[in-house]
């Protein structure tokens, strides 16, 4: 274990979906709203057409130039909490 490969920010894979933080938002029309998003230092432009609730500072899951889902910061701990809860239940 250990020594697992570190994440590459943007690989040329159509299937890849990566979380990113919204830095700024441009446009009013819900279908044409775009954001500058940050992938740990790399900044790209994404369409916000499918996340009308997105605001500056939110994290979104991005895929081929689109934010396709909000990342729920409260649920982000589930992977770590689940095992603890399961073990306590045993």
């Amino acid at each position, binding site marked *: *274990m250990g020594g697992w490969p570190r994440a590459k920010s943007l690989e040329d894979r*159509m299937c890849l*979906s990566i979380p990113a933080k919204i830095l700024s938002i441009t446009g009013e029309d819900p279908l044409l709203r775009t954001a500058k998003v940050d992938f740990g230092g790399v900044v790209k432009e994404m*369409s916000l057409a*499918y996340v009308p609730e997105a605001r500056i500072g939110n994290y979104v899951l991005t895929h081929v130039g*689109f934010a396709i889902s909000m990342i729920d910061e409260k649920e982000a701990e*589930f*992977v770590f909490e689940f*095992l603890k809860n399961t073990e306590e239940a045993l």
Partner: protein
Amino acid sequence: MTLKYLEEYRDAGLAKKYAEHIARITTRPWKIMEACGGQTHSIIKFGIDRLLPKSIELVHGPGCPVCVTPMSTIDAAIELVIRYRVILCTFGDMLRVPGSSQDLQTAKAQGGDVRMVYSPLDALKVAKAHPEKEVVFFAVGFETTAPANAMAAFQARQLGLENFSMLVSQVLVPPALEALLESSTSELDGFLAPGHVCAITGFQAYESIVGKYGIPIVVTGFEPGDILQGIDMCVQMLERGDARVENQYTRVVRREGNHEAQKMLETVFEITPKAWRGLGTLAASGLRLNSAFRAMDAEFRFGLNPESSEERTGCRSGLILQGALKPDACPEFGKTCHPDHPLGATMVSTEGACAAYYRYRYLTEKKL
């Protein structure tokens, strides 16, 4: 540089804890299929299958859109480039997928105008910049990519881009899963549903599959911690004789999915029977442009009629995509078939199971 909401799920200590827990709760052999090529990629890259007890077998599913795009559709794309001299915009993954006689990269080398795009909207920019040329976007993908591809069609119509069309090869996961479960050879006990597909569609469709086949399904993410938790949740259900849809990927997936994206899919696409490379034609398993957008369908516009053509290369990707053959058990693997000379699509795409085994197993372990 760190990527929040990504790297913390790659923690080796977390993976080890899950692997130990799974080993503790497993009393019988279980066969679990991961649906998505991205999950297969993570499993092989991080060696997740090797962390698990021997009694848990991970079966790799058909979830690689590049891999299941029919050879006849690749041939149609090449015909557009060579015969109709269009500018073809495509995701980079499609360039080296073999058609019946060549691939798009070869067509490009022969002077064809093939351009890699990151987003479907980039293809619109190409169409705007070249009003004198026909520009075709090669719209492949599962439900995850469908809303982005749909938006390209929608915006092209808004912008009045008459020189833009799409060659569509859009596939849907639930019908493929049902086809696998219907097949008499399937011995699957559980299923990890693709998290990013479900981010769009939600997971109601999987609840009806559970109802019909009594197989537990866990909506699962893509990082090692996610996949191990998904397996853990699936094994817990199997061990207690329970079959439901559970959601591991709660930080991204809601039961009802993404409403805005679903609305756009309904506006642009309709459900259609679809040929899958390796699986044959499955009822109601694909999307095509609906009548309002038919004029933008490249098959319609150019009078293409992609006929089904069979693999002639000895490639067994059909068995690989059904989870019936492991890549390294294929007699061609690493011998006549490797990424520089792929016999089939599963060795080309980075999401393809054969390419993952080659890159993370064959190359590294051959050197040992």
